[in-house]
């Protein structure tokens, strides 16, 4: 076997990750704990690290140790244990050990390490070939497949019923929404799911949140108006420019295949991973990872889902950077993307930020393309966090999301001095995601 092909094709030295970064890869809190339990140096033998791969054997309860290996450039994980969690505690424990300087550099990778790397390399080549194959033709084939015409009819019927329901509400008055809203929206959401418009169904199910607020009538009218706008836009899709039409389709909830996404022009850049957040919804965990390109300045959202406690995409680590081509979901203010091809890691560092005073202009631009946009990542530099807002030295402030509470960790890192902060803009205020301190150290918030 040719060792040099698998292992020695090292592209760049990967900077050692922090403990925090490693733990952010865990599928759940229990995994974090279990990983810490197997991260003691005494548990590991035959471990070693090359610039982009770490491996080792972990003593388990059985006679043979588990073999764990992590390709740091992706990262990708391999372990011989039977765990269904991914990455498993052994892979994470190995990374923790590596993060605390406990894995000796160098060393000859064992045969099984080289073998796995070789397998991965050949698989990657095949996938790449597949992705490059006439993607647009496959996309066309997918779109014209059976059932889609029926879906169009159902969606159209469902949304026109929604339009009628909304105008009825406004005609009769929404003063009673606090009493009858929850039951009404439940029923409405179910009908929209049946009508195969899951995007709108989701917007309807989130309506209950506004009832907690003092100014709920205004907020509810705003939400009704935006849902109504979407229904009208769908009815009149033919009149819309192509990008906006795609935005409407995706907000309504038409699925788009990976092939269709890959068929769009790819954007290659060195992408900083600027933050991430996991959220539980309907027995699934949604992992949001936000990226920002160094040359293009574009931002992207990579979204993945998994049942609670199971494998989530753990390949993008906050605070690291990757040289990759992204394919954006089509739309007027494109944000969601998939990683079409990884070319390798990039040197990590503090991402470029904009001034806080530029944020309103940028958000206005986003809303010009997509009026329904309610989340957008921004990297701000020279920000001085305060208890209720992000401020700059000129005294401009962006409010924080009230439900996030005071971001004490962010305040602690800044100490009243300017820092670089990645945050998620939302109409109700920003949520801080990540901060880079004066030494350039990354802290997830």
């Amino acid at each position, binding site marked *: 076997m040719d060792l040099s092909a698998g292992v020695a094709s090292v592209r760049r030295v990967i900077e050692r990750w922090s403990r925090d970064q490693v733990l952010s890869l865990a599928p759940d809190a229990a995994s974090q704990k279990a990983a810490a339990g197997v991260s003691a140096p005494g548990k590991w033998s035959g471990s070693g690290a090359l610039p982009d791969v770490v491996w080792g054997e972990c003593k388990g309860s059985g006679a043979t140790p588990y073999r764990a290996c992590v390709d740091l450039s992706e990262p990708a994980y391999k372990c011989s244990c039977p765990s269904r969690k991914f990455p498993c505690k052994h892979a994470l424990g190995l990374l923790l050990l590596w993060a605390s300087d406990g894995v000796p550099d160098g060393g000859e990778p064992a045969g099984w390490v080289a073998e796995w790397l070789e397998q991965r390399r050949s698989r990657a080549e095949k996938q790449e070939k597949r992705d490059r194959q006439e993607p647009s033709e496959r996309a066309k084939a997918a779109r014209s497949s059976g059932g889609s015409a029926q879906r169009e009819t159902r969606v159209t019927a469902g949304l026109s019923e929604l339009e009628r329901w909304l105008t009825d*509400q406004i005609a009769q008055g929404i003063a009673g929404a606090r009493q009858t809203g929850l039951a009404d929206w439940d029923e409405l959401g179910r009908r929209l799911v049946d009508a195969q418009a899951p995007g709108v169904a989701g917007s309807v199910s989130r309506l209950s949140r506004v009832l907690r607020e003092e100014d709920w*009538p205004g907020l509810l*009218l705003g939400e009704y108006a*935006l849902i109504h706008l979407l229904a009208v836009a769908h009815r009149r899709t033919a009149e819309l420019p192509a990008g906006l039409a795609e935005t409407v389709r995706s907000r309504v909830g038409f699925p788009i295949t990976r092939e269709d996404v890959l068929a769009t022009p790819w954007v290659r850049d060195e992408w900083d991973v600027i933050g991430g957040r996991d959220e539980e919804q309907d027995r699934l965990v949604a992992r949001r990872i936000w990226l920002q390109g160094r040359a293009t300045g574009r931002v992207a959202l990579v979204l993945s889902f998994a049942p609670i406690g199971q494998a989530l995409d753990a390949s993008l680590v906050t605070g690291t950077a990757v040289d990759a081509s992204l394919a954006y979901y089509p739309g007027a203010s494109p944000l969601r993307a998939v990683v079409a091809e990884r070319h390798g890691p990039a040197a990590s560092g503090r991402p470029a930020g904009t001034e806080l005073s530029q944020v309103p202009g940028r958000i206005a631009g986003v809303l010009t393309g997509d009026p329904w946009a309610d989340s957008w990542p921004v990297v701000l530099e020279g920000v001085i966090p305060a208890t209720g807002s992000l401020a700059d030295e000129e005294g401009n402030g962006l409010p924080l999301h009230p439900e996030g509470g005071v971001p004490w960790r962010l305040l602690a890192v800044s100490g009243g001095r300017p820092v670089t902060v990645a945050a998620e803009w939302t109409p109700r205020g920003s949520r801080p995601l990540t901060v880079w301190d004066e030494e350039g150290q990354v802290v997830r918030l």
Partner: protein
Amino acid sequence: MSTSWEDLVSTALVGADRRSASPGEVLEQAAVEVVRARAGRRTHTSRPPAPAMEETRPLASRAAGDRLARMLGGEQARLLPEWLEAAAAVGVRVPAQLIPGLLDLGARDRSIRSHLGALSGARGRWLAELNSSWQYLLAEAAGVPSGDVWEFGTSGDRRAYLTASRAADPGQARELLEQGWDKETPEDRAAFVLVLSDGLGMDDEPFLEAALDDRRREVRQAAADLLTRLPESRLARRMTERSARLLVVDGGGLRAEPPKACDSTMERDGVRPRPPAGTAQRGWWLQQVIARTPLAFWTVHLGRSPEDVVRSKIGDWAREVAMGWTRAAILQHDPRWARALFEVEPLTDLLAVLPPEEQSARAAELVARHPVDGQMIMMLGGVARPWGPRLAKAVLKKIVEMSGTQPWNAGELIRLAGERLDPAMHGHVQEIPELAATLRFRHDMSKELS
């Protein structure tokens, strides 16, 4: 036609039909207004907080910081006080992002607060100014050397200053305290009196006697406790007079006669009139008077050695008398009495009076001789770390014996041993994996903080 947002909301609330408006138009205008408001929102005016002071201490190493993060996340959380103590001893500060978690813990657990002032540095104090539940930090010593500390420092800094000054020149420290005594807060007065325990002498007696008339009970108690340790003090003489009537030789044994009342002079000397629930009033007074009587008095008064005194037969009130002596041995730091009493009843608190090696040796004997129960585990909890080799051996033997028969007590003993054994032993306890892991953790922890 243009309608204001307020009009749109009020139309929507009561219903477009009543206002003869078109509901579709209301929705369309509202959509325009919502998006316009979102897109047109400007930054507001915000005054950022003034920057924190520069740090004076170096940051803990990355490995040490990572370990602290793990402990704050729940791993080996019982060892957190040891981490804080070791880190404070080497003079580092903790990574800024961990300060909020530590301060939250300190808000719930007073016992760890004393180290937080120095460990959280200038950033910690800056945060405490912003969050009312962390205000306690501002009273803790921050370890900042400064010429004006006694005048302007935090309570903790002033306590540290007074302690250092007391060590250098006891008389001068007391005089410093006397000068501003009337202006100190009650909390500070109670804390400052305790500082005098170091280098205590008859020169302090007039000041402490006066402090018996303080408005705050904690101050009076602290002063009385210190005076008990001065056999020549007026308080010690008054107590001796009372005690002479309370306990007398009666044939081969002793007879106790508790006070019939608690008068105002007894109360001034620190005797608390109201007993805790379930304790007889007179017995409570008896116990307190004995606790504040110099122990040397008994050997003269009763004509026997401490070892004989504690073994003497006492009829009624024997329990109260023994508790009084125990409290006295602790208050007066008397190792001979503590040893004698421990032989009769092995109470944790008595161990604290003995030198560390002896604590360990006495505990080892007990562990080897007796079965382990909740009381023994409590006693062991009073033996300071690190446990000596004999105690370590005795405890390890018990753990192995018990793990099959009494898993609950064995588990508790393993946790305690993990906190108290010398971490260098981690390689020699492989047969108890949980213990080996804890010791290994402490071993690595102390390496990172040395």
